[in-house]
């Protein structure tokens, strides 16, 4: 069943469809939450909030406007960034910062890397370190192009070009692949 079909069933309060959706996306979304929040407990809370939001707002999904993945990851990223920004402890934020694009919690938490992970990882390795870093700052840290330029002390135009070129390169590397749903 496609993502669109699953979401359509969720709008009709189909619990089995919701479970299937969880099985399909929970782990990847958890990984995204963990990457943004750098805290397991927070990431678990965020994951629950995200799936409750999916349950409540499934009928808002419009396949004409975006793919199911875009919809799901937008919810997950927004929720996680909101939670990250609302943290009261500045110290927590400082400790959470990292320059390592693939930073994760302890090795014991890791599952065997999937083919997909290897595939994406290899594509990311085709980018320069600077390109990977600006993508990390914008996607996982939620910084705007202006904020990135300020943090790195580089001209805005440079940052724009760097982000643009990194995504254009990734797009060409991923070309020919079609995501489900």
């Amino acid at each position, binding site marked *: 069943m496609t993502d669109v079909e699953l979401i359509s069933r969720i709008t009709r*309060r189909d*619990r089995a469809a*919701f*479970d299937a959706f*969880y099985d399909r996306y*929970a*782990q*990847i*979304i*958890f*990984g*995204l939450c*963990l*990457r943004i929040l750098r805290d*397991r407990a927070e*990431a*678990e809370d965020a*994951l*629950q909030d995200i*799936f*409750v939001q999916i*349950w*409540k707002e499934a*009928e808002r999904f419009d396949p004409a406007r975006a*793919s199911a*993945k*875009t919809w799901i*990851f937008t919810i997950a*990223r927004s929720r996680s960034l909101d939670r990250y920004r609302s943290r009261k402890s500045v110290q927590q934020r400082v400790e959470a910062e990292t320059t390592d694009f*693939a930073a*994760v919690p302890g090795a*014991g*938490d*890791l*599952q065997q*890397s*999937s083919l*997909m*992970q290897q*595939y*994406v990882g290899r*594509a*990311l390795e085709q980018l320069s370190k600077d390109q990977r870093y600006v*993508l990390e700052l*914008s*996607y996982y840290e*939620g*910084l*705007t*192009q*202006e904020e*990135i330029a300020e943090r790195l002390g580089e001209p805005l135009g440079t940052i*724009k070009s760097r*982000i*643009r070129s990194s*995504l254009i390169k*990734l*797009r060409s590397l*991923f070309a020919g692949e079609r*995501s489900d749903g």
Partner: protein
Amino acid sequence: MVKHAELDQIPLYAVGALSGEEKRKLEEHLTGGCELCEAELFEFQETVNRLPYGLAAPQLPAEMKERIRAKVEAVDAQKPSRIRWSTVLQLAAVIALFVIAGSLYWKQNGLLMEREKQLETLEAQRQAELRDLEAKLEQQKKEISWLRDPSVQLALLTGAQPNSKGKMVWNPTLSQGIFYASALPQPGEQKTYELWVIGNKGPVAAGVFAPDQQGSVVFTISRISEPAEGKLQFAVTIEPAGGVSKPTGSIIMAGTPL
């Protein structure tokens, strides 16, 4: 030629790096329905969607699924009947249609009722006019028939006021008559004109009347209280309002049959 400077903004927008006025303008452009930019955005969004797959996959807590199920059930318990906005909108549209139809009906009904009232009023007026015309027609028929009757007497009444004139058409067989007068002034406050038929036994009251605005009178005497016999006279006096059984006031005009 379509200039698409917006295309350069698409990758930045897809990854969430665009902000402020640039973001607003691009969103406005996309809302405007630019198919080229929409297609570009879709592709870059799918590219960005791959990024989380490049992360290491952490172990999910075994009970996480159950925790989420419990939360979802708690959400549904707070809202026992989930509202589908499409259904609400449809219902609202149906209710709005009923309200509009109902108000149109009542408005139309109100207009019809008003029209009906107007027609009823007009009908009543027409009926009154018809009755009036019928009465006049009967009157004229009677006059014509009396004129043909040789026993009918005609008397001219005159008085102190030279302009005021009266005429009595009297049917002695029926003791009925028609009195005509012209240029009669109004009788005055609490006063009335009264007509008398004077026979051998004295004056007999024949009725009270009042002239119209022009001072004209057409007064039908359908009956008198007692027969008037012998050579008759006719007279008009001014009496207290409502009339009297025997004349008390001054004679305004009088006359005998020709």
